[in-house]
């Protein structure tokens, strides 16, 4: 019984939150990796593009709510996502046309494109803050919990409760659908294959008649889908604040590089690597050991490897270690 309690404890505080957080990071990391693989630059505007998409989704959510439209127990924001994706895609294409295209056609070094993306970052940040303001916003509605901790305790008769938030389930389900569709698209369809070819060897791809304009446009559209959905899922689960989104860029980059930048599947797994290590290393295991060990050996301290303040630092340290020993990432990068 004690072991079961310990297991539920870990599920409740580590596994489920890490899975949800990891999914959010994974989507962002695939976004970074796609841009890096096909457009060939590190996009420092990642976090702010995600916050732009989320902002549009929030505005649509408010609009729908204003005339009483809702999805019952699901959050209204899900309904707003397609519209937000449209706006996000439009925004990205406009930016590409006025900013990135020039450097791409001139074959500028990736560093210059990265610098340009910093300019885009500033502009996007300003746009988001001017339109919706810098404050914290919650836009979640509908049923909050799928299983409440109390209900679970009553149902099973255990000491530990397992609470599953509906946003966590939505995050995981949406991620599975989104990522599997994306991989199917990249591996099975003709357009997806040509994208991979373009990423692998640009000149060869051009020789075999692949239209670069089309590839770039499709990449931005996929990026828009990923950015918006990733951002909305994070916002639903936690809350929307432009500054947090900007900061989220850092673990997302870590996930993309750990997984091997340019490799979407690596980025997907990288998200979970980062999320799990962040939570595993900063969780206080005192209660867990109280269940598992006999009473005489109960620990005094919190048995916490690192204080929660160092959450971000954990993922960055992992990144540094990976960069040192396997600069191309755990799953060989730059293949797509």
């Amino acid at each position, binding site marked *: 019984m004690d072991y079961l309690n310990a297991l539920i404890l870990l599920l409740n505080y580590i596994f489920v939150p890490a899975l949800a957080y990891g999914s959010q990071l994974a989507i962002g990391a695939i976004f970074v990796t796609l841009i890096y693989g096909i457009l060939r630059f590190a996009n420092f505007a990642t976090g702010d593009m995600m916050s732009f998409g989320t902002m549009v989704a929030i505005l649509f959510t408010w609009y729908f709510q204003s005339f009483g439209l809702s999805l019952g127990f699901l959050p209204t924001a899900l309904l707003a996502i397609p519209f937000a994706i449209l706006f996000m895609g439009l925004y990205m294409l406009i930016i590409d046309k006025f900013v990135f295209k020039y450097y791409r056609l001139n074959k500028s070094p990736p560093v210059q494109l990265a610098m340009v993306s910093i300019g885009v970052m*500033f502009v996007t940040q*300003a746009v988001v803050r001017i339109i919706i303001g810098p404050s914290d916003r919650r836009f979640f509605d509908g049923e909050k919990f799928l299983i409440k901790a109390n209900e679970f305790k009553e149902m099973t008769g255990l000491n530990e409760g397992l609470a599953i938030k509906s946003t966590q389930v939505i995050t995981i389900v949406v991620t599975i659908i989104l990522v599997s569709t994306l991989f199917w698209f990249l591996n099975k369809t003709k357009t997806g294959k040509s994208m991979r070819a373009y990423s692998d060897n640009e000149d060869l791809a051009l020789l075999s008649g692949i239209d670069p304009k089309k590839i770039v446009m499709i990449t931005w559209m996929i990026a828009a889908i990923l950015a918006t959905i990733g951002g909305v899922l994070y916002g639903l689960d936690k809350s929307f604040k432009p500054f947090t989104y900007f900061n989220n860029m850092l673990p997302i*980059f870590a996930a993309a590089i750990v997984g091997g930048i340019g490799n979407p599947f690596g980025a997907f797994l990288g998200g979970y690597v980062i999320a799990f290590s962040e939570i595993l290393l900063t969780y206080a295991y005192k209660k867990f050991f109280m269940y598992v060990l006999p009473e005489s050996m109960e620990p005094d301290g919190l048995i916490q490897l690192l204080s929660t303040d160092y959450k971000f630092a954990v993922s*960055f340290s992992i990144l540094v270690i990976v*960069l040192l020993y396997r600069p191309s990432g755990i799953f060989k990068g730059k293949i797509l």
Partner: protein
Amino acid sequence: MRKNLNVIAAYSIMMGLIILVGIFQSWNIALSIFNLCLISAVMTMGANIQWGYAGLINFGIMGFTALGGLAVVLISVNPVQEAWSAGGTNILLSLFLVIGIVLAVRFVLKRYQKSKIRNYIIAAIIISGIIIIRLVSEPGIEAIEEVNPARTGFLGGLGLPIIFSWIVGAFFAGGLAFVIGKVALGLRADYLAIATLLISEIVIAIIKHEDWLTRGVKNVIGLKRPAPYEVNLQETEWFINLVEKFNSGKLALISDITERQAALNQFVIEGSSVFVKLCYSGLFLVVVIILLILTQKALYSPWGRMMRAIRDNEEAANAMGKNVVKQHLLIFVLGSAIVGIAGAMLVTQDGLFTPGSYRPLRYTFLIWVMVIVGGSGNNFGAILGGFVVWFLWIEAAPIGLYLVNLTTAGLEDTHFLKVHLIESVPYFRFLMMGIGLLLIMRYRPKGILPEKIEIK
């Protein structure tokens, strides 16, 4: 003279703008902008050495700035004796343990050949070392943080004059840069950018949360000053006389004696803060000028030529027998050390150390905008970039407000759009920076004052 005309013109326009602020807003604002411009100029010089001379991307400027600030605390604050006696031994012991671990790892690395077992041994040393250090330091840290937590709760510093800390800040930042350089300089340019960005976040996390060392988010306030205090100045005889002399014209107009005395007091109060700011400006100017002379000399020395050769063609420079790795490391350390000086200057000027205020946008990306806008590879350009961008960063809000009022002049004052826009005026600075950066990169990719290489 002729060929430097654009430099002179650009700088005179910049000084003219600051003087205009002084006339139309107040001299206090103008001087505080000027001081921060000088500090920004030092930071951009550091970044410019790395990017402009050697083509190294350092997105960790925030981390080096914060380390410079930390140096100020560790040097100038008076030591907290109680805290030292409570937990000093544990901390010192941990310090020796850290050194021991580093030496042990070095020993293993030198002694044994590259193999899997060696990696495991190193990992084992580091992990067990960390566990031992935690066990040793934990009681010490707790004891230190319990010593009068509302006012101290940290070890304090050495109690030395604050100017020393500028040099120590350079050493701190340089030391960190050495470690980062050893680890990350072999990486490709954009990987290096991301790695330094994340490492600087780690540095900030440590400074924020190790309360025994830095007081963390509780901030350290009331640091020593290299300049006189306003309150003391207002009571000093010569200063009052000086202010009286300066404003004698205005004072003469007032006939009533009590009124004249009140006016004089007002002038003294204003004058004292201007005077203090002028002191800082003097100090900062000295630093900027010394650094400028040194960097200019370096740029036109054989060493500078070699750095440009490495930047423009690494393989060729390597083939000519230049040690690229070593030179990259050297320049990374030098540039970061300069940024460290700037960080120390910043904290000195503010008189307080607030770890929570270090944000990558302000301390990393903004500095990069300065370097790119000013002109990378050109020291005068970098300094000008610091001035222009900081000036715009501060004056963006008034300019934005003016623009908003101009464009929405047709709307009523209570119209929701106008109210909303006026509320979001502070964010126009981001827009201005972004658009400025994009325009410069597109139409003048070498910056306002481009790099000029004279061949003699």
